[in-house]
């Protein structure tokens, strides 16, 4: 029983991370019908933003009060990247065939990865590194903030890491914020309107371009929190971390029903728990850690076969 609860906790922690990232895929898809494959990189840049803030402002100080400032730093980096990406890469292609922005997204993803890899520490060729940042070509240790990292809690035979509590707490807070923003604010209702019918929304006086920017920024905010959470959990970050996490989060978004924000959260949690349980409970040759991804994707295929709209249902209207 302990083991079951333990894998459930592991799964929910991993799933919370997927869910935070998946929201970014689903919000943008809901409005633009664009799969923004560069969103994994927004998550990665969030983590690097937090690391940069910590290195430049606090120089190894890991007191708890630095964490909110690191999260703000992460958000500035992520949102900045997402907004620039929308403005210069996607907006010029707004009326282009759908394949063009999709391929652009893959291009941006590669560009951002290589940019961080080669230029996180300024321009090494010119010895220009004003902030004194380390080389990001290999994994970098992430600051271990007091209180939220450190010895794990033992609750009746179940080990709960502090960073796991942070991650799950972050998902709860972000979900409440997201629900409030979408359902209770004017901009949020504007997003819903644009998602249902952009042309009519424009006729009603909604600035569609602005709503799209807001959608990108909203996804980036949550991705930034996820970046910090992953850094705290794994103790290290690297320029490739966005690729696999992005792929899993995209899977989570599809699993929950792409375009559906609640679906992204549910899909993320389900995916994480399935991975945890598959590691533990599938016996013999096809069980164990190496097969967890296989079972996660088997689940995705089954859901798509029997419930193509995803667990909670995708947006009904597809304007393809």
């Amino acid at each position, binding site marked *: 029983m*302990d*083991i079951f609860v*333990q*894998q459930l906790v*592991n799964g929910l*922690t*991993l799933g919370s991370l997927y869910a935070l990232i998946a929201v970014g895929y689903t919000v943008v898809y809901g409005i633009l019908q664009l799969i923004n494959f560069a969103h994994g990189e927004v998550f990665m840049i969030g983590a690097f933003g937090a690391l940069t803030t910590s290195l430049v402002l606090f120089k190894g100080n890991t007191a708890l009060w630095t964490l909110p400032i690191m999260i703000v730093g992460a958000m500035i980096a992520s949102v900045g990247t997402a907004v620039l990406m929308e403005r210069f890469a996607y907006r*010029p292609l707004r*009326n*282009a065939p759908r394949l063009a922005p999709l391929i652009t997204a893959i291009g941006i993803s590669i560009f951002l990865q290589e940019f961080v890899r080669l230029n996180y520490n300024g321009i090494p060729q010119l010895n220009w590194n004003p902030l004194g940042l380390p080389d990001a*070509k*290999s*994994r970098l*240790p992430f600051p*271990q903030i007091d209180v939220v*990292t450190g*010895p*794990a809690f*033992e609750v009746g035979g179940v*080990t709960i*890491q502090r*960073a796991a509590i942070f991650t799950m707490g972050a998902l709860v807070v972000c979900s409440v914020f997201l629900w409030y923003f979408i359902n209770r604010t004017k901009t949020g209702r504007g997003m819903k309107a644009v998602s249902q019918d952009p042309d009519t929304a424009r006729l009603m006086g909604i600035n569609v371009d602005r709503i799209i920017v807001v959608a990108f920024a909203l996804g980036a905010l949550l991705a930034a929190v996820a970046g910090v959470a*992953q850094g705290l*959990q*794994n*103790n*290290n970050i*690297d320029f*490739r*971390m966005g690729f*696999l996490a992005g792929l899993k989060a995209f899977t989570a978004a599809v699993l929950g029903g792409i375009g559906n924000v609640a679906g992204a959260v549910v899909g993320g949690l389900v995916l994480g728990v399935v*991975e*945890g349980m598959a*590691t*533990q409970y599938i016996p013999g040759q096809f069980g*164990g*850690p*190496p097969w*967890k*991804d296989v079972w996660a994707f088997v689940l995705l295929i089954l859901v798509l076969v029997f419930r193509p709209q995803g667990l909670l249902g995708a947006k009904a209207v597809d304007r393809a």
Partner: protein
Amino acid sequence: MCLGDDQSGGTVHQRSVVRIGASLIVASLALSACGSRSTSNTGASDGKKIAKIGVMAPLSGDLSSLGLGIQHSVELAVKQANDSNAIPGWTLQVEARDDEAKPDVGKNAATAFAAEDNMAGVVGNLNSSVAQSTQPVLASAKIVQVSPANTNPSLTQGANFKTAPLRTYPTYFRTCTTDAVQGPFAARYLFQKAGIKKVATIHDKKAYGQGLVEAFSGEFTKLGGTVVSAQTINPDDSNYQSVITKVKPKGPQAVYYGGEYPQAGPLSQQMKGAGLNVPLMGGDGIFDPKFIQLGGGAASAGDLATSVGAPTDQLPAGKKFLADYEKAGYKEPSAAYGAYSFDAANAIINALKVSLKDAKDVVSARQATIDALGKVSFDGVTGKVAFDKFGDSTTRVLTVYKVDAAKADAPKWIPVNTEEFK
């Protein structure tokens, strides 16, 4: 829209500009290529002929701190050889290529080396899995290859190294010892010296990690210990909670990990975070300061690693190497394989002393270089350097290192046990 304008107007003009531009670029590339070839054939300004020593190692990416140490150590050996005019009439040059720790990239690097007429020998690779793909390329060009770091036994003794060892590539040598020695050495240390009877093993499914764990498990069970859980991880993952949860209830007294520090450091840190407070032990792939950094600093105290040879700074020759390296002012430290790379380069240089003496060019001397390298015997900075009939180093000294956190703000590896493996 601006896109439409571009397509409708001015196409002809733009296309011709593109064409002229492209042909100019091609022409300049061709010219520069010719230029570099002619300089390399005519040789250095003092009328000496040029022989090149190639370096293949990960110069970027996670393992670059090891790879750059290899490159600089070879550069140091070559510089010293040139300064002392080790091979009269010849100047040595180093050419380094990045293998990114990937077999396909390594193969490209090896192919480029094989195409060069004055390539006399290659030091590399770092990873056994990469060497598997570079060996045949260099062997077909008869270029000697000396690895400072490949520890997979099958590289020298063939796939059936346990039952019927057979040398596959006569051009391949190595200055380090193999996993067939390193794994059992670790098993004996844990069982006999540390008194540990139950271990769990984890590896990353790569040639190095898997080979190491197999050799370790074989010896550990033979001694009477139990492997309570055998798991693998995906090297691209960075969260290992599910594996740790699987291992923890079995109550291992230590975890033996086959792989390298980019995964081992976080694994150790996450193990301790999850309450599995037992030492993680690994091979030379985790013996790097970065392991401690990624393992959460002082949190990794007590973790163990084996590495080949005696600690470089405990031998007089090793001390001199480290001092020379320091003096040469390279940006990156010599790292775990510096001394082995230095010895590897010197082994090639010693062979070239014999084979190039009366040779008119490098290509015709290649077979002689292979023969001479097999007979090399000198005192290197890691101990005696000589090769057996498989191309393996005859020195089988290993050391166990431990992460020491006596100073909590500056934990470091300290040697705890150096022994000759019998």
